[in-house]
C-alpha cells in the first residue's frame, strides 16, 4: 500500500528539484545573468542620462523579468519528461494538481525569489529613484509567483513538443499583460507619491487567483502531454 500523504509528496518534489538545481547551479544563475546583461544594454542604447533612464527603469525591469521567466521555463518539466519522472508524478495517488503546485512553488523559489533579491542592483544601474525601489520589489514579489504559475501552464502544454521555446512565449505573453500594466502603474504612482494601494491589492488578488486555478490547468496539461 503506498500510503504517502499530500504533504509528503509536496515536500519530496520540492526537495528533489532543489537537489537537482544545486547540482546544476548554472540553471539558476543563467537567467539572473541574463537579467543583469539586458538591463546593462539599455543605458548603452538610450544613453546614461538619469532622466531618460529613471522613467523607463520600472518598465524595463518588468519586461526583463518576464523574459527571464520564459528563459527558465525549460527547467520546469523538460527534464522530468525526458527521464520519465513526469509519468510517475501522474501516477501518484495524491491529486496531480497538488504536484503541479509543488512544481510551481519550487520554480518560483529558484527563479522568482532570486529575481526579487536582484532588483536593487538593476534599479541602481537604471537610475530608478530610490523611493520607487520598495514598490518595484513589492510588485515583483507579488508578480513573480504569477509568472511562475502561468509559465508552468505553458511549459506543461509544450513539454512533449520538441522545440517549444518560441511557441511558449507566443502562448504566455498575452497572459502577462495585466501584470505589466498594474505593476508599472504602481511604481509610476510611487515615484510621484500617489497612493499605490489599489494596484498592489489588484496584483495580490491576481496572484491568489492564479495560484488557485493554475495548478488545475497544469495538471490537465501534463495529462495531455504524458499520454
Amino acid at each position, binding site marked *: *500500500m*503506498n*500510503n*504517502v*500523504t499530500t504533504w*509528503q*509528496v509536496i515536500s*519530496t*518534489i520540492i*526537495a*528533489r528539484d532543489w*537537489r*537537482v538545481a544545486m*547540482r*546544476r547551479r548554472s540553471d539558476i544563475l543563467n537567467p539572473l545573468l541574463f537579467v543583469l546583461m539586458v538591463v546593462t544594454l539599455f543605458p548603452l542604447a538610450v544613453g546614461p542620462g538619469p532622466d531618460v533612464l529613471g522613467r523607463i527603469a520600472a518598465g524595463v525591469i518588468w519586461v526583463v523579468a518576464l523574459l527571464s521567466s520564459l528563459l527558465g521555463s525549460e527547467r520546469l518539466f523538460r*527534464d522530468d519528461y*525526458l*527521464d*520519465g*519522472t513526469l*509519468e*510517475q508524478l*501522474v*501516477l*501518484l*495517488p*495524491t491529486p496531480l494538481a497538488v504536484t503541479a503546485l509543488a512544481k510551481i512553488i519550487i520554480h518560483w523559489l529558484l527563479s522568482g525569489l532570486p529575481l526579487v533579491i536582484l532588483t536593487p542592483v538593476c534599479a541602481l544601474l537604471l537610475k530608478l529613484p530610490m523611493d520607487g525601489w520598495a514598490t518595484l520589489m513589492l510588485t515583483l514579489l507579488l508578480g513573480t509567483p504569477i509568472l511562475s504559475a502561468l509559465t508552468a501552464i505553458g511549459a506543461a502544454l509544450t513539454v512533449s513538443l520538441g522545440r517549444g521555446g518560441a511557441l511558449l512565449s507566443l502562448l504566455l505573453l498575452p497572459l502577462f499583460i495585466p501584470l505589466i500594466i498594474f505593476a508599472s502603474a504602481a511604481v509610476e504612482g510611487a515615484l510621484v507619491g500617489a497612493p499605490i494601494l489599489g494596484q498592489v491589492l489588484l496584483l495580490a488578488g491576481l496572484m491568489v487567483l492564479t495560484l488557485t486555478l493554475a495548478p488545475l490547468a497544469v495538471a490537465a496539461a501534463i495529462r495531455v502531454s*504524458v*499520454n
Partner: protein
Amino acid sequence: MTSLDSVTSHPVAQQQGTEILLHAQHLSSTRANRLLFRDLELSIPASSVLYVAGPNGSGKSTLLRMLAGLYAPSSGTVSRFATDDNETWQRQTLFIGHKPAVKQALTALDNLQLQAQLDGAQIDDPWQLLETVGLLGLEDIPAQQLSAGQQRRIALTRLWYSRARLWILDEPFTALDQAGINLLQERFAEHCANGGALVLTSHQPLTWQPQQLQTLTLGGGHE
C-alpha cells in the same frame, strides 16, 4: 486492420476464491488514427502473470499504459481492485515504463531515497538494497555516468520495497544482463507467491514458470 486474434490463455483455474485485481472489457485504442487493438477482454486474478507479446508497434506499451491509467482507452472500461476511486487503486498499482524514472543529475542513493518517499515506503538500509540489485560500488556517482542497464536497476529497486499488489512493467528486462534478468524473475516469483499480480511485456521468453500464466498476443503490428 488488426484485431486481437488470439487470446491464448493457459487453462486458468478460475477458482471462485481468488480476487480479481483488474478487469477490462471491450478495450480498444486508436493511436494517430491507427487502430491498435479492438474489443480486448482480460482479467487478472491475484498471484497471476499476464505476459503481453507481439511485434513492435502492435500497441503493447499503449495497452500497458492504459491499464496503468496513464492513457484513456478510446472505448471500453478498465476496473481495478473493484473500485473506481482513483486514489485507492493507484496506491495498489506500480507502473514502470520504458524510461527509468531516474534523475540524471542525482546519485543512485538520492534517487532511491526520494522515490521511496514518493512511494510512502521506509527503507532501513538503502546501501544493502542497492547491493542486492547489483549496484555495489556505484551508489554515489551521478546517474548520468551509469549505463542504461544500471539506471534501470535503480528504477527496479522499487520492486523490492513497494507493497503495491499489481505490477505493470513495460519491458523490464531491457538493457539488463542475464544476472539481472534472473534476479528479476526470482523477485517476480516472490511477488506472485504472496498474492501479487504482474503484467509485463518482453521480447525474451520467461524462463521462470509461474503457476498462473496468461499470454496475450497482440497481432498485426505495422501494416
